[in-house]
């Protein structure tokens, strides 16, 4: 049944399809959200050239078709492991229309750490604060509006296992796509010695990158000594060996 559904859905898929990436720490209920949004309409495969599997599913909302790509659960986007590399490459090079960051309400500090890193790479982010019921049981109350204000992004509270908040989430995703919601993600300010080097590099990077990547983000990766960035740029932007969006989300 999986494969039949899949063939049907693949026929409908076109370039116009809205691609949504699902990111988050491990153990945040990310897969529960994925399953709740896509039901049994899922397709699994391996990431291009990697031995890590991905899951992709479809859903229809407000009459539009969305492709949801489940990224590996990671603690950061700093490319320490294959999982993190995949998540980062998809967000930065496939440029999904929206990225959902699923966070665990009972452990916001570490979850926001990932959200902030993703916000450095893309503006189109919605944060889902999941496991609200569990947080409540533990006496943790999350002020969603305050969080949204601080992050400069839409934030939706969810209890994925009861489907709570999922409609809001789908509405919000669509609002970002239609530009009804304009995000203004919080940018982190680093210590002066780092900011100064970023300033030094930015003008040249702007010229080099031609709008393909965010210059500030690339400057930060250069400063922290990321060894994987050059390879990824070569693969995705220079030789275009791999069309990560096409292969994973749109399945040409």
């Amino acid at each position, binding site marked *: 049944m999986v494969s039949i559904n899949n063939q049907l859905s693949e026929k409908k898929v076109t370039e116009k399809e809205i691609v949504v990436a699902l990111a988050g720490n491990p153990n945040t209920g990310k897969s529960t959200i994925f399953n709740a949004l896509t039901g049994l309409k899922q397709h699994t495969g391996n990431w291009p050239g990697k031995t890590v599997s991905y899951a992709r599913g479809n859903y229809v909302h407000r009459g539009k078709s969305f492709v949801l790509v489940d990224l590996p659960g990671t*603690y*950061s986007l*700093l490319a*320490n492991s294959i999982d993190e590399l995949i998540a980062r490459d998809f967000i930065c090079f496939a440029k999904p229309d929206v990225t959902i960051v699923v966070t665990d309400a*009972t*452990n*916001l*500090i*570490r979850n926001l*750490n990932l959200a902030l890193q993703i916000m450095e790479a893309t503006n189109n982010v919605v944060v889902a604060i999941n496991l609200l019921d569990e947080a409540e049981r533990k006496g943790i109350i999350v002020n969603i509006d305050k969080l949204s204000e601080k992050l400069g992004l839409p934030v939706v509270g969810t209890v994925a296992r009861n489907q709570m908040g999922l409609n809001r989430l789908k509405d919000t995703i669509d609002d970002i796509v239609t530009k009804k919601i304009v995000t203004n993600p919080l940018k982190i300010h680093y210590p002066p010695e780092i900011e100064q080097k970023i300033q030094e590099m930015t003008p040249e990077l702007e010229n080099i990158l031609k709008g393909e990547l965010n210059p500030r983000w690339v400057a930060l990766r250069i400063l922290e000594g990321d060894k994987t960035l050059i390879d990824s740029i070569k693969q995705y932007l220079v030789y275009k060996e791999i069309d990560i969006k096409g292969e994973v989300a749109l399945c040409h």
Partner: protein
Amino acid sequence: MANKPLPLSNLAVGTKGKVESILIDGLLRRRLLDLGVVPGSVIEVVRVSPNGDPTAYLIKGALIGLRENEAKHILVHPI
């Protein structure tokens, strides 16, 4: 705050320490950073595995198990 930094692995269960530095480079250092072991974080020693190693630490709100030969690379000020 106490004076001399100690390896995290020397701390007793129930005590806390504030991270001063991480002594190794490479993948482990980056992993630890990602988990929130950054200078200034407070780490609490929560419990030890039934046969003595690994130990579970409360780091930035999450319970993380580390082996002794990893925790010994993290220098903390006991508090």
